[in-house]
């Protein structure tokens, strides 16, 4: 197709999308209003199931199937990264030398690591009560561990982070979500239905299956992000390619090299 034709096709498609989008936006509730038709219904449903964080109720109770989809997206994305970034036959692994870290950075990192870890676990554990939950807390837990890479060096990080348990943990988290959903089917209800007793409002055990699904997601996300970052760290720090030509789009050196070739 000629460039003009392509531009015409794009403009036609863009005009249709713009028109439909404008119509859709005109039908939205006003920005920043106190009442929202879906919000009101979701909050009522959350309170009915004794879940004080309405968002957690939407994620793990009213729309638990959507969350399973999102969890699976992350799971597959990490799997894809592991496959793409694995050590290939023409790459060799070398042990990085211990790095010197300035004392203030070391102290800051070692001080922040337990704090960040505790915050992450708190956010996961209180997902059904306060803002946050498995995803947010899981990411915090995973990044907290990497403070060790900043405070010490890569070998210290590898020592507290043997990859195998995290790989297993990721799969177990994903499986636990599906199994909790299937348990509801065995109990005579629908897949991922909230069949457990709802408990007392605003306590840790409230919300029925919400805390369980939340914990499963927390485990999957924390382990998944650790595994994902480990692939990037391995490639950046440990693995060396056989030839240097893997990258062909870094700016300044490109033109000079091309002239020489």
């Amino acid at each position: 197709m000629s460039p003009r034709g392509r531009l015409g096709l794009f403009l036609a498609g863009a005009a249709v999308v713009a028109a439909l989008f404008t119509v859709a936006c005109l039908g939205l509730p006003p920005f920043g209003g106190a009442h929202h038709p879906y919000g009101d219904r979701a909050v009522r449903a959350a309170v009915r199931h004794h879940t004080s964080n309405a968002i957690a109720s939407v994620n793990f109770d009213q729309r638990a199937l959507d969350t399973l989809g999102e969890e699976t997206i992350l799971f597959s994305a990490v799997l894809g990264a592991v496959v793409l970034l694995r050590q290939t036959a023409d790459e060799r692994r070398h042990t990085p030398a211990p790095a010197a870290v300035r004392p203030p950075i070391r102290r800051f990192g070692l001080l922040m690591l337990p704090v960040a870890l505790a915050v992450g676990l708190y956010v996961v554990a209180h997902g059904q009560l306060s803002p946050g939950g498995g995803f947010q807390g899981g990411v915090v837990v995973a990044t907290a561990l990497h403070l060790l890479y900043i405070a010490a060096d890569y070998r210290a990080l590898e020592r507290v982070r043997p990859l195998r348990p995290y790989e297993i943990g990721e799969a177990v988290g994903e499986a636990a979500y599906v199994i909790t959903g299937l348990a509801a089917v065995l109990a005579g209800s629908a897949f991922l239905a909230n069949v457990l007793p709802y408990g007392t409002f605003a306590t840790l055990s409230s919300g029925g299956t919400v805390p369980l699904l939340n914990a499963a997601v927390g485990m999957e996300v924390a382990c998944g992000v650790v595994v994902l970052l480990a692939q990037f760290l391995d490639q950046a720090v440990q693995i060396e390619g056989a030839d240097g030509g893997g990258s062909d789009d870094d700016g300044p050196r490109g033109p000079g090299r091309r002239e020489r070739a």
Partner: protein
Amino acid sequence: MTGTLTDVLVAVALLLVAAAATAAVLNRDPVRQALVLSFLGLSLALLFTFLQAPDVALSQLAVGSAVTPLMILLTVRKVRRRPGDGGPPQGGAGDGRRGAGRDGRPPR
């Protein structure tokens, strides 16, 4: 929080987001882009907090201002290290092969 104060905070956060996002686009150096992206994540988290969406703000803070910039920085380190590793970037052993890989045609 009164309505006006919320509006002011939302407006400030929106301006911050717009400025940070524009800076991220205009920056051509990936390392600096990663830092600007981190700041953009922070501004977005502020915006979401002022719009009373703390759950989304937490996600944005964790992913947008920590994990994504870290992944970009690690990728840049890997990509940059290869050509310049163990010698000056131009010339040295195995350069012919590099040239071939870069241009997709054998060096003359």
